[in-house]
């Protein structure tokens, strides 16, 4: 019980900061949409190719946005050395992990909805299997948020954090990109039977790394 209370305290704090600063909405979302537009420049929009590869492009864009969101989540802790303040409160590392992860996941999920609408409009995608999409997206988001929070704290405070974070995070997320893209393809084509195994894989990934984070984050957070 105490873990949940402390975690929701941290999540509420991060989300309130995000709501005030509007970095996610004002900077990360426009970034995602411009990336989606640039993909259309790179791939001929008239050939129908864009519509076919839309799920992959969508999730690549989400991954890039996630790098920014994770970086931002830990940049907030570095300003005025708030991280030390947070550590001094004696909060459990697991609670900090769950709180920060939940906040990142909420931000990403919000981004995915808006970016998804943009992709549907820009790429002319037809959505058939909404249920599959709604089962796959949260799982992929939690997978990204859990590994992102773990690697975010690993890289936080290091001088090379901006370059280290993508190198650490993107290879680990390869299965998430693969799974989320296949699940979305299945969902969009209205062939959900192809998609469900991938949804399962995404949930396993998310569960696994969330558990890992709960166990390991404290050590990284305390630097001991």
């Amino acid at each position, binding site marked *: 019980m105490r873990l949940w209370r402390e975690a929701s305290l941290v999540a509420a704090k991060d989300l309130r900061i995000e709501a005030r600063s509007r970095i996610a909405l004002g900077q990360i979302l426009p970034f995602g949409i411009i990336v989606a537009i640039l993909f259309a420049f790179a791939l001929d929009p008239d050939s129908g190719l864009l519509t076919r590869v839309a799920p992959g492009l969508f999730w690549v864009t989400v991954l890039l946005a996630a790098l920014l969101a994770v970086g931002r989540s830990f940049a907030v802790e570095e300003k005025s050395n708030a991280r030390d303040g947070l550590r001094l409160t004696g909060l459990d590392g697991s609670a900090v992990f769950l709180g920060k992860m939940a906040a990142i996941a909420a931000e990403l999920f919000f981004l995915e909805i808006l970016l998804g609408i943009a992709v549907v409009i820009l790429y002319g995608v037809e959505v058939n299997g909404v249920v599959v999409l709604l089962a796959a997206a949260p799982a992929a988001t939690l997978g990204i948020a859990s*590994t992102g929070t*773990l*690697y975010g704290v*690993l*890289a936080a405070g*290091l001088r*090379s954090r901006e370059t*280290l974070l993508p*190198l*650490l995070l*993107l*290879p*680990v997320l*390869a*299965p998430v990109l*693969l*799974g989320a893209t*296949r699940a979305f393809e299945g969902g969009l084509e209205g062939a959900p039977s*192809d998609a469900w*195994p991938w949804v399962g*894989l995404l949930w*396993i*990934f998310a569960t*696994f*790394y969330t558990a*890992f984070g709960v166990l*390991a984050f404290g*050590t*990284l957070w305390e*630097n*001991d």
Partner: protein
Amino acid sequence: MNPRDQLLDPRLRRVIGVGAVIGVVALCLFGLWGAPPDDRQGEAMRLLYLHVPSAWLAYFAFLVTAIASALFLWPRTRSIVWDRVAGASAELGVIFTGLTLVVGSLWGRPIWGVWWAWDARLVTTAVLFFLYLGYLALRRIPGDAISTGKRNAIAALIAFVDVPIVHFSVEWWRTLHQKATVFNPELSARIEGVQALTLWIAVLAFTLVYVYLLDRRYRLAVIDDVLAEQALEQAIKIRTGDNPGVGR
């Protein structure tokens, strides 16, 4: 401060070193001349004598890194020894992974007609390469021995548990979606007789090379630590030199 200066007993190390040299020479002789060319793949098949053992050692090295990392995290077995072993093995693992990719690519050109193909094993190996490249980049960042050791160990385990997930998902992806394929099963080499013997020699020789290099890399880490310790003692002397502290 140095719980274990040498990973292996020096005599054992010399035996392994000599064995590795003999193994590599034997591999060259068998691989280049002793074994006959494959009746379908021709001379290109000889690349498998490098490809197969380096792929095996890449995975083995990362397994060693994972086990050593787990032993470091477990408080009862925590020792700087395990952090050094994990780092040394990961470096070798990345080298063997790179070798696997390069040799695989060289082999793919004549056999498949392409330098790179989206084969499940190839893709998994490539992701593995970058996973551990990131781990090595993280390792280079200095800090207190225990806290960086834990940080490294956790990063190694995050990467290691990803390996089966990557493998599984990539395998799945390629089998579900495989269309016109460049992989003709007729092209698979049939390995028997001298060829099989050569392959076994290759695996043995590479494993000996790995163990020998692991020991040497470990020794380098020990020397690095000794140097760092001397530098620290010097720095403390410089910092306190002109004002000895108050007596107890």
